[in-house]
């Protein structure tokens, strides 16, 4: 039986290694390069990446563009759960401007160090990185306008706690915009384990319905979950899972049971800004074409 502590240690070690690889100028991360690219590449526009340190871009291990989906406003306070190399924090800081703040929370020393370096290179001052856990956020109740996260919530062994904490630290009317991996339907256990290890590095993706239910029981309203990319057998094949897929008769364009999604929700209450329609925002933020993105 894997304990929560063991899961966290595995995740921490995995991302520490990714940070070390970025520092060593080697961009490969979980799985092979190809696998990582399918999930994490082409999520940001060239305009967004302009002026950001290369290390922040290379260390970006997300599966969506939560900053674009969050529709940030000048002066807002943003918290990024699992901030990694800091790309989404730096992008947020730019959008909220000097009157706003962007906080990055991460539990991995190597990633925090990398994020601080990237912050220095980017010359951004309205940013702070905190070492901590998303299951026990070190912030007071109702202190944040927007919570973002990029492919990190799936890594938590206690997602109910994460969502309850997110609800607590958000101001009434505050917004949640997270990119994440979800599981789809019935996948044979052996295949599921390997696919999860590929996509999220550690098993833990929820099904869309479970995600929605957990958000609602944490007190969130206006929950929307939109698919950004459904992974196919060729994506997983590129990650070296070909033999396994063949065994289960999955090939080519067939879906393998995982998707990148954007999850948005609001803490009920007066105040804050509303979201625009997700379709409009998603269309503008990510110019996806089959096989070329997310």
């Amino acid at each position: 039986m894997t304990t929560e502590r063991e899961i966290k240690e595995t995740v921490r070690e995995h991302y520490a290694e990714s940070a070390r690889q970025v520092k060593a100028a080697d961009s490969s991360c979980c799985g092979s390069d190809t696998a990582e690219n399918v999930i994490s590449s082409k999520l940001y526009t060239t305009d967004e990446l302009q002026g950001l340190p290369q290390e922040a871009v290379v260390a970006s291990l997300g599966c969506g563009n939560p900053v674009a989906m969050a529709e940030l406003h000048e002066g807002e306070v943003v918290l990024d759960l699992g901030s990694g190399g800091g790309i989404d924090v730096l992008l947020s800081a730019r959008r909220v401007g000097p009157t706003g703040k962007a906080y990055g929370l991460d539990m991995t020393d190597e990633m925090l160090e990398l994020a601080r370096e990237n912050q220095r290179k980017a010359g951004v001052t309205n940013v702070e990185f905190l070492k901590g856990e998303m299951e026990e956020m070190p912030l007071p109740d109702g202190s944040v306008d927007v919570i973002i996260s990029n492919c990190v919530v799936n890594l938590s062994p206690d997602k109910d706690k994460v969502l309850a904490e997110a609800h607590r630290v958000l101001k009434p009317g505050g917004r949640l915009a997270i990119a994440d991996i979800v599981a789809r339907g019935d996948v044979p256990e052996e295949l599921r384990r390997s696919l999860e290890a590929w996509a999220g590095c550690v098993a833990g993706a929820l099904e869309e319905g479970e995600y929605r239910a957990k958000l609602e029981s944490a007190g969130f309203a206006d929950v929307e979950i939109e698919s950004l990319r459904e992974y196919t057998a060729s994506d997983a094949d590129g990650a070296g899972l070909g033999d396994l897929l063949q065994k289960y008769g999955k090939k080519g364009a067939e879906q393998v049971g995982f998707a990148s999604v954007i999850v948005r929700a609001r803490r009920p209450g007066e105040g804050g800004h509303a979201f625009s329609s997700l379709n409009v925002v998603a269309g503008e933020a990510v110019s996806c074409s089959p096989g070329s993105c997310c």
Partner: protein
Amino acid sequence: MRKDLVDILACPVCKSPLELTIEEEAEEEVVRGKLTCNQCSEDYPIEDRIPNLLPPEMRTA
């Protein structure tokens, strides 16, 4: 961390406000120091400008 960050931080365990003690400072930032939760009688270290706010039982890897 900047000194005024303490105003928005809370103890990860009991969520009470924290008290800042500075041991080393540079360019308006706290390089080394601690954040104390008087409620839990717990110190959270600040190392290399980053506050370590992991819950005490998670702090030693």
